[in-house]
């Protein structure tokens, strides 16, 4: 089977590929060929065409964008080759199964966590991802809906940091200058939450507020480690779906029926629950 990944320049997608490879080892009858489209729709179409020429039995694809990839996925599906779509969808229903998480739900759970730890009162800085990108929109909407029931929870500053640690650091400095008291920083991903933490620490204000992120990637530079180190109060798993996609692919190839849509659940990671010990030395 072929696995077409849209961009391996992102740690989250590197983690997805690692999950696919790790789970695939448990199925000796599966052989996977990989392609990285480097964030280029045209390259991803060509990658899938290459797979077809190689004679794959199943296509796994995490599309770069829905519309440009829809025709090629439909062509594969109509040729009788099952298709498992991961994370980002395609248009129509000409595929076998979609596996992905629900960013709106993750935003809601983050909002409910914030309401719980603040007792429903507090001043929030929301650091947003790339404007207009679906995860940034849904993670924001979910959180806003969750705190709507708490009129004393206010969003006092909501800068854009485009998912980047460096931009979040500068934006947080301005938020700190503009606001004498901040209770919670909610960032749409962990790198931005860590950037905000570093800015607050440089001003000696990191104890004043809690930092909440999303993604909870494993690894030393991931959000789980940041929670274990006490930098972040909590982070929410955005599952890559790599493991589940391989399991579903195996079931399809063995002729089993599978659901058309699989929604992955998030998980809250806090210092108590993560069970990992810092090996980065004394923090500060």
């Amino acid at each position, binding site marked *: 089977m072929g696995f077409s990944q849209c961009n391996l320049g992102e740690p989250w997608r590197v983690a997805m590929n690692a999950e696919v490879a790790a789970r695939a080892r448990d199925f000796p009858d599966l052989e996977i060929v990989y392609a990285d489209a480097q964030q280029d729709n045209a390259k991803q179409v060509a990658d899938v065409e290459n797979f077809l020429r190689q004679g794959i039995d199943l296509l796994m694809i995490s599309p770069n964008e829905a519309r440009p990839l829809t025709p090629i996925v439909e062509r594969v599906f109509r040729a009788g080759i099952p298709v498992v779509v991961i994370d980002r969808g395609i248009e129509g229903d000409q595929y076998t199964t979609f596996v992905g998480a629900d960013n709106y739900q993750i935003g809601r759970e983050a909002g409910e966590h914030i309401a719980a730890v603040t007792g429903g009162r507090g001043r929030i800085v929301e650091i947003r991802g790339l404007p207009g990108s679906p995860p940034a929109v849904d993670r924001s909407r979910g959180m806003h809906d969750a705190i709507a029931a708490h009129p004393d929870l206010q969003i006092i500053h909501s800068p854009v940091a485009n998912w980047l640690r*460096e931009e979040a650091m500068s934006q947080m*400095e301005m938020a700190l200058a*503009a606001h004498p008291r901040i209770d919670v920083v909610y960032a749409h991903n962990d790198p931005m939450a860590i950037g905000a933490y570093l800015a607050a620490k440089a001003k000696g204000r990191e104890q004043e507020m809690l930092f909440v992120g999303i993604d909870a990637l494993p690894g030393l530079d991931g959000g789980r480690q940041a929670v274990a180190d006490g930098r972040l109060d909590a982070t929410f798993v955005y599952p890559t779906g790599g493991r589940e996609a391989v399991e579903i692919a195996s079931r399809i190839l063995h002729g089993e029926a599978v659901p058309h849509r699989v929604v992955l659940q998030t998980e809250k990671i806090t210092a108590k629950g993560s069970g990992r010990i810092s090996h980065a030395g004394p923090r500060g």
Partner: protein
Amino acid sequence: MTLRPPPRLTGLVALAAVLALAIAFSPVRGGRPVFLDVGNLTDILRQVSEKGILAAGMTPIIISGGIDLSVGSVLALSATLAGSLLMRADAGLWPTIVIVLAAGCLCGLANGLVVARWRIQPFIVTLATMSAARGVARYLSGGAAIPLGFGEGGAPPAFRALAAPIVPYVPMPAVLFLCSVGAIAVYLTWTRAGRYVRAIGDNEATARLAGVRVGLHKTAVYVIGAGLAALAGLIHCAQLEQGNPNDGAGYELDAIAAVVIGGTSLSGGVGTVGGTLVGTLIIGIINNSMGLNNVDANLQLILKGAIILAAVWLQTRRPAA
């Protein structure tokens, strides 16, 4: 060879105008504009320091009639190399700094030699280096960032000095930025080499006929530019406590914008690093002011574009020499 006067005055007028706007629109706390807090003003210097160092290094390159698109990638490569040396190779503080700066200069040497010896357009040469340096950085780290841990078995805590204040309110990145500007100013104004760079940018053929070693001086500006990009990479690594091979994308364009806003001509021969300092500050103040006011991000992009255009227009309205 006639040189137009440096556009210091118009640049300062633009800077004053931006400052006045920032103060006027600043949120007020305790009866005083937040923008004027000492902490906020030094924040601005810190926020612009990395791109400012790139811009300082870019100035002689543009004055020589060239361009360097690779500095953002060289910054990422340097930050990743620093993280790798500190965390994986257990290299000490000074070996790390020396190796990273040397690696940066090597990238610049490659750019300079190809531009000067093979006479290939710098736009293409540095575009190639931009891609290659990014690739090496990703290869080095396996694609993910290398986080710094301090203390036992980690990076030497002294490395943090690159990101910390020297004395309260004076962050090291800002000091290194101003030192870089000072060094480039000396190079361009008071050394013979600097005057040759200007002459080459003004008219390369004339400079060659006058006996200037064009190849040597052209190579030198790329080495200096990439060396400063490596310095910015070290600061980047210390500030973010990680070496990330994917960082620094697009920094080269911000650096070029700061140089041009500062009155340096993209066609070469004309410009000052003082102007680049002013250009960098103008961009930094605009960003800071809009951030303090929580201006909508889309509106920020539009306003920034308009202000850059206005600043460049101010610069070009001077009489031709």
